[in-house]
């Protein structure tokens, strides 16, 4: 695949690993958080951790929209889907996310709810056109990458004068979540993880650009390097972070310049700001209420807002107390620190959302990392 395979060359990766090792100072730790689930996935899949020096640790952050969706929002969607007039359209990743008491959209579907998996918002529009007598609701979820497609869809629904179409909006923003990790009030109970720098989101940044991260570099004194998702991209970004740390710099640097600019995608940003506005707060699984971190439809588009249209009440449910997703999303604990990992909780029977999405830390470790644990145990 062009613009992918070139950035997976093993020889170059080994050379980069040597450069990283040569430049890290043995006496100090380097702790970098990758915010994005896509990065977590790449690190596990290509075994990048094995190539890095022991004093350099990658901390898996909260950056997977499926993993941070609170169980209450799943319950709300299930209630909606159980209404006979409604067809609920969802991205496939959401089907197995646990709601309260083991409920999921998949189980609701098995019980007869009309829930349809879609690949794109365009499919949801088509379903609404084909079913004029039903109410079609799109379960919108995702970071800044997935929000513009939802905005385009609402504009399209308006253009086509679709009156049976609405959106259950769960879009969230990455910068407030990053800030929350650095300064949240419940750090005292859950513990804080020391972070020396961030690997910044790849595809989120294609939309919002690198500028929003300048605040972190300045305000928190943390280097941020925006990185692509291929293994060589990640290795280069890690080297760039090592150099910033060594030189006591904290700037925003852009490794992924082939796709990301400082300002991002202006057209996409415009679409989003036309249609959405900030919520005062939004609940994140594992992070709790995060101020100004979620989006809702503007009042002018209220007829497309499923929460208004169907009088949906906010449901709050506590996560399974044994599930450590909260601490894992903050990088305080690793998947293997969870008692349920690999026993009751596997990708087939996920207890927490970190095990559902392939970009979740638990699922990534289950698929690619647990054999390494086993080898390390045997070796020691």
């Amino acid at each position, binding site marked *: 695949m062009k613009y992918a395979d070139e950035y997976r060359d093993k020889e170059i990766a080994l050379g980069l690993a*040597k450069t990283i*090792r040569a430049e890290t100072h043995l006496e100090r730790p380097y702790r970098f958080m990758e915010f994005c689930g896509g990065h977590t996935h790449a690190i596990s899949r290509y075994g990048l951790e094995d190539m890095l020096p022991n004093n350099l640790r990658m901390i898996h952050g909260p950056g997977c929209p499926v993993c941070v969706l609170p169980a209450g929002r799943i319950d709300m969607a299930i209630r909606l889907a159980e209404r006979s007039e409604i067809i609920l359209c969802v991205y496939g990743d959401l089907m197995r996310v646990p709601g309260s008491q083991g409920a999921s959209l998949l189980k609701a579907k098995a019980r007869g709810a009309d829930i349809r998996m879609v690949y794109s918002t*365009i499919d949801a529009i088509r379903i609404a056109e084909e079913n004029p007598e039903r109410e079609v609701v799109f379960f919108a979820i995702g970071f800044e990458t997935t929000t513009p497609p939802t905005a385009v869809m609402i504009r399209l629904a308006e253009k086509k004068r679709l009156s049976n179409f609405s959106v259950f909006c769960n879009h969230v923003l990455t910068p407030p979540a990053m800030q929350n990790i650095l300064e949240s009030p419940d750090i005292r109970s859950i513990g804080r993880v020391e972070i020396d720098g961030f690997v910044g989101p790849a595809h989120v940044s*294609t939309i919002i650009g690198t500028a929003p991260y300048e605040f972190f570099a300045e305000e928190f004194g943390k280097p941020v390097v925006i990185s692509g998702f291929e293994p060589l991209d990640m290795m280069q970004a890690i080297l760039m972070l090592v150099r910033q740390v060594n030189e006591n710099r904290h700037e925003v640097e852009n490794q992924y310049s082939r796709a990301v600019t400082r300002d991002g995608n202006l057209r996409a940003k415009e679409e989003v700001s036309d249609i959405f506005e900030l919520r005062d707060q939004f609940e994140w699984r594992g992070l709790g209420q995060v101020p100004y971190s979620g989006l809702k439809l503007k009042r002018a588009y209220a007829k497309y807002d499923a929460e208004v249209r169907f009088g949906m009440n906010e449901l709050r449910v506590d996560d399974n107390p044994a599930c450590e997703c909260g601490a894992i999303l903050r990088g305080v604990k690793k998947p293997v620190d969870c008692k349920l990992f690999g026993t009751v909780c596997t990708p087939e029977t996920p207890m927490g959302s970190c095990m559902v999405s*392939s970009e979740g830390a638990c699922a990534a470790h289950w698929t690619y990392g647990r054999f390494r644990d086993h080898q390390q145990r045997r070796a020691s």
Partner: protein
Amino acid sequence: MCLAIPAEVTKLLSDEMAIVSIDGVSKEISVALIENLAVGDYVIIHVGYALTKIDPEEARRTLELLRELSVEGQGVAP
């Protein structure tokens, strides 16, 4: 959820849609978020939408830099 892949634009359609090719597999996607797109451009696609164009010049420069950084490492003892 956020995984996205590069694809080559092979045909522009009406209504801000286009056909792209991913390793020879064709797919119809929306290009409503992209300005000034031409056949032969590479874009990053995600949930059926092109998010951004790939800049071939920057892509080449990154590869060159990666090679240089890798060679720097080859000279040091493992």
